[in-house]
């Protein structure tokens, strides 16, 4: 490091300017290498973030057409250049031991220490914690969802639209933790080194086959043996990676000494069946309920509460209809989310709206703040339910 500093020859004696004692003075000069030094940037960093930066755990992400963001392992920050009209003279440090040449032992003023200005900084970059930009992730993974046929037809499949972890880190403007969490909420799975979304049909068929096998082999769906399920399903042509992903998506692991056991989650299984029933389009609520209750595995109980954030109801005459409208298919940034919601419906009651906005996280903005920013609230009288409509129409 010292060698490098010497080669650059940037000693500026910053220490001398900072540690002047009362009554002493030093000349301030332009450095012998004074210039615009466009390759120097000043980045304002919170003391809380400093250890991450100094520990090499930070990087800047973005494509040339995007505003760059700075990511630590867990958070994302917007970068904003703030210019100044002041003259900000930057003085680099000197050698570790400043060359104090005192001409006379008594004369403390006649040292040859000079503080040198290497450049004038035009401003600095500020960091503002921001929500990760994750919509692109969903878009990328939706390009080529995994389906069962591609494994069965063992032909040369990997046609494109496939993304490795490293590709995602480079393209998505979010921290690694935020990307992992988003992959989880998209129920993406790593197949042969590529992160994929499994298409709905494949997920449904896999789950249905697990349930069918559990009837055939008398397995308890509250304690499915992983080894048993994977080997039986493999014989039926379902790849183990996809079967275990299906178990993860629809259940939770029950720890057991010698075998992994899975308990299927009633809500997640019922939801999968509900969306399957609705995949053909909107239905009368009554016939939907019949079909749904008929399809779900015995022992499970369907409840419309399970479908919050996944379906919308509408009244047509005396009849109530239901159709799929999934929060996971909506944009994740608040402006676009609200725009999409108000395109769908001009007016929302709070109980309908809440499931579609509760996952929005904006640093420094509460749900109340979100509503003020993006909606207009009307309440005909104090007892009435408030109605939310778009602020921009």
């Amino acid at each position: 490091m010292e060698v490098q500093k010497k080669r650059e020859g940037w000693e500026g004696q910053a220490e001398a300017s900072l540690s002047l004692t009362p009554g002493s003075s030093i000349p301030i000069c332009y450095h012998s290498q004074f210039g615009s030094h466009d390759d120097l940037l000043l980045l304002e960093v919170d003391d809380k973030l400093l250890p991450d930066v100094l520990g090499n755990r930070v990087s800047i992400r973005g494509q040339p057409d995007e505003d760059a963001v700075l990511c630590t392992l867990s958070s994302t920050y917007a970068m904003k250049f703030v210019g100044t009209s002041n003259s900000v003279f930057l003085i680099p440090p000197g050698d570790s031991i400043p060359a104090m040449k005192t001409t006379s032992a008594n004369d403390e003023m006649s040292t040859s220490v000079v503080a040198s200005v290497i450049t004038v900084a035009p401003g600095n970059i500020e960091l503002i914690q921001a929500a990760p930009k994750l919509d692109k992730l969903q878009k990328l993974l939706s390009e080529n969802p995994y389906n069962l046929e591609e494994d069965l037809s063992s032909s040369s499949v990997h046609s494109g639209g496939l993304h490795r972890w490293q590709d995602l880190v480079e393209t998505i403007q979010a921290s690694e933790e935020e990307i992992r969490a988003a992959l989880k909420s998209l129920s993406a799975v790593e197949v042969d080194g590529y992160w994929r979304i499994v298409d709905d049909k494949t997920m449904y068929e896999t789950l249905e086959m697990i349930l069918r096998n559990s009837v055939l082999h008398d397995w308890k769906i509250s304690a499915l043996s992983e080894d048993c399920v994977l080997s039986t399903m493999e014989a039926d042509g379902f790849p183990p990676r996809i079967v275990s992903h299906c178990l993860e998506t629809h259940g939770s692991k029950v720890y057991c000494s010698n075998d992994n056991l899975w308990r299927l989650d009633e809500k997640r299984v019922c939801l999968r069946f509900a969306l399957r029933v609705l995949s053909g389009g909107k239905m009368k609520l009554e016939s939907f309920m019949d079909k749904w209750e008929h399809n779900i595995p015995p022992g499970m109980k369907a409840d419309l509460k399970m479908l919050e954030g996944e379906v919308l109801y509408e009244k047509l005459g005396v009849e109530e209809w239901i159709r799929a409208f999934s929060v996971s298919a909506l944009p994740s940034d608040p402006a676009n989310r609200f725009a999409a919601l108000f395109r769908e419906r001009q007016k929302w009651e709070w109980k309908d709206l809440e499931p579609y906005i509760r996952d929005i996280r904006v640093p420094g903005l509460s749900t109340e703040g979100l509503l003020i920013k993006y909606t207009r609230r009307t309440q005909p009288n104090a007892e009435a339910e408030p109605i939310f409509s778009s602020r921009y129409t």
Partner: protein
Amino acid sequence: MQIRLKCICRQEECREWSIIELQGVVESHPSLVDHLQNLEIGRLCCVSEGNYTFTVGYHELSGTKMALKKPLLVLKKKKVGDAFESGSSDSSGVELEVIGIIRHRIIFKTRPMALISKPLVKDKKNL
């Protein structure tokens, strides 16, 4: 694409740079504009703990040393050798190296005060 922020000082404390900040612009004599290197701008004097004067030409500014609320890191853009190597984690071919940290600045907010009977100096301060 991603650009890594690299810090070569590792666990050691980063070398501290300093800032002298003043309002407006220091103008040099037109004949010197292209030869500023090594030219003296002025003299920084500590009058008492935390209080400074900065004498530029016939003008004296007074100011104070202030700790920055948030430190500033000095970053330097660096080209990385293996920019074209496919699969490299830093596809941008650029790296930002932390070469210093700034925790204090000496800021001069006042209008300059004219000094009389001082020897001629090369720079002049204009606001």
